[in-house]
């Protein structure tokens, strides 16, 4: 018999909490929506203070901006390359941490997660000093795309631990009896890996690829430090445009990147059921 008629966990139905939630959503989304809306604002000066009518001309301007488009091409090249290598390296990391018991394992785990935790600026600065002390691809006259090498190396360094984390979570619910069953039926170690483990890992690999792609595309700070004078990425280019003068063109360029991120997120959702989000906490 219950003296209290209130249901225990009904916090989500309290109007005050709902109001906090809604306000937070407005807080999170309003700036982005305003940015997107003002990318269609027909105004030249300072651009985006007052609404002056609808236009798409700034998208045309952004697409015609050769430097911006080169920066975009650079960003895509960096993202694709670093994603491929990060997923490969992340998968190796995930497998050895998941599969084996070995001395100093907590140390190895800590080391792998460190690039995720330490402040971006520390990593950016240290990598910048590393490349300049080795004099690697810093002269500015290396041909494309090799001039992007150190940005790619930096991106792999901060994104493969994320890939390893995602893939390891997937491996954690692999039933080792599957592996034994395959061996029992006559499969060699290699066949077990190819026929059983790899298909199991596939969703994790795809999720990891989409995550590292997004991380690479989004990074500003580390790229800002490791990029040479002639190697500008999309975010770094936008940054220098913002520092120079604020124009609707920046809004248009930003919107392009936002749309790209949205597309990637929904692609990720196609491979990972939406319910997985709430399950891995």
């Amino acid at each position, binding site marked *: 018999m219950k*003296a*209290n008629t*209130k249901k*225990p966990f*009904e*916090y*989500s139905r309290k109007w005050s909490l709902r109001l*906090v*939630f809604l306000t*937070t959503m407005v*807080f*999170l989304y*309003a*700036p*982005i929506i*305003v940015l997107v809306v*003002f990318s269609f604002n027909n105004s030249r000066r300072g651009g*985006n*203070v*007052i609404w002056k009518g609808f236009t798409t001309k700034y998208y045309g301007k952004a697409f015609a901006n050769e430097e911006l488009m080169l920066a975009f091409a650079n960003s895509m090249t960096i993202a694709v390359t670093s994603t491929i290598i990060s997923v490969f*390296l992340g998968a*190796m*990391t995930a*497998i050895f941490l998941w599969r*084996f*018991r*070995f001395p100093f394992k907590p140390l*190895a785990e800590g*080391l*792998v997660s460190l690039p995720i*935790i*330490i*402040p971006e*600026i*520390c990593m950016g*600065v*240290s*990598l910048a*000093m*590393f490349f300049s*002390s080795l004099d690697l691809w810093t002269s500015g006259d290396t041909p494309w795309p090799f001039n992007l090498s150190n940005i790619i190396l*930096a991106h*792999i360094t901060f994104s493969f631990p994320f890939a*390893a984390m995602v893939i390891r979570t997937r491996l954690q619910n692999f039933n080792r*009896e599957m592996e034994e069953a395959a061996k029992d039926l006559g499969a060699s170690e290699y066949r077990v890996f190819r026929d059983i483990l790899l298909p199991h890992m596939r969703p994790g690999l795809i999720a990891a690829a989409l995550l590292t792609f997004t991380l690479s*595309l989004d990074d500003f*700070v580390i790229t800002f430090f490791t990029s040479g004078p002639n190697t500008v990425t999309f*975010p770094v280019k*936008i940054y220098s445009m*913002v520092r120079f003068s*604020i124009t609707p063109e*920046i809004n248009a360029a*930003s919107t392009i*990147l*936002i749309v790209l*991120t949205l597309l990637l*997120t929904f692609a990720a959702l196609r491979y990972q059921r939406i319910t997985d*989000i*709430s399950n891995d*906490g």
Partner: protein
Amino acid sequence: MSLENYRQQPAVFAAFAAPTLIWLLLFFIAPLGIIWLYSFGENVSLVDIETTWTLDNYARIFQPEVLVLLWRSLWIAGISTLVCLVIAYPVALVIATAHPDKKPWLLLLIMLPFWTNLLIRTYALLNILGTRGRLNDVLGWLWETTNTLLTKFGLGEFQLIGESFTPLKFLGTPGGVIFGIVYVSLPFAILPIYSSLERLDKSYLEASLDLGAGQWRTFYHVLLPLTAAGVVTAGIITFIPALGQFLTPDLLGRGQVDMIANVIERQFKRANDWPFGSALSLFLLYITFVLLAVRSFYDARKAHRS
């Protein structure tokens, strides 16, 4: 099924472990090692640094103007973290107690802005926080509405809320920077609290309510203590990146609200004082390690108790 001992298949183990460890050694530990050496060095020419094991660079951290900077960075990051936690808890609570079908979508709503480029999110705030920006528009409209209402009630001539609306200045003030840091780091705070609420055994709350405690008392005496670990984690993983923020103070602070990262950046990009920049970077890294140690100490104590 248990883990395999690496000795059973040393070759397979080495083949999988070596690339990772070599990569980290080469592109993570070695770079940190280089700035560690630089932090004990002196500029001998424009680009050459000699490691003389001087402690001057570290001593400079304790000069008054740098201490002012450190203190500002700490309190701005601290207040931003607190604000984040205060907003994050109710938001996490709403998500954790929502209908299971809605939960993942609500979480997606929280994470979506987080996937958007940090630079773009910070840039978006420029439009919001300007003196003629959207936030001041909203505040101005609120002032107008209140004023109209007051006039209707015959209180117009007393000018209770000022003679006219003066737009507030956010850009270039600590308030604007805090607004920006809260904006970019809110998801960091929500997710750990959400997952600690998720893991909570709901029967504790039922028991508390069943024993006659109200919703608020249940919150204070049962819910909050049981999710304290999640709140601490949320606090630390919000505070660490907040302390190292570069973009927010750079774009929203307009050079008037510098934090550690801005000064570090200046040493490398403009002042060309790499040794001091290195020392400052490592100092930031050490603060991070101390915070992580505090967290694992907290976890260990909690594990010991249970």
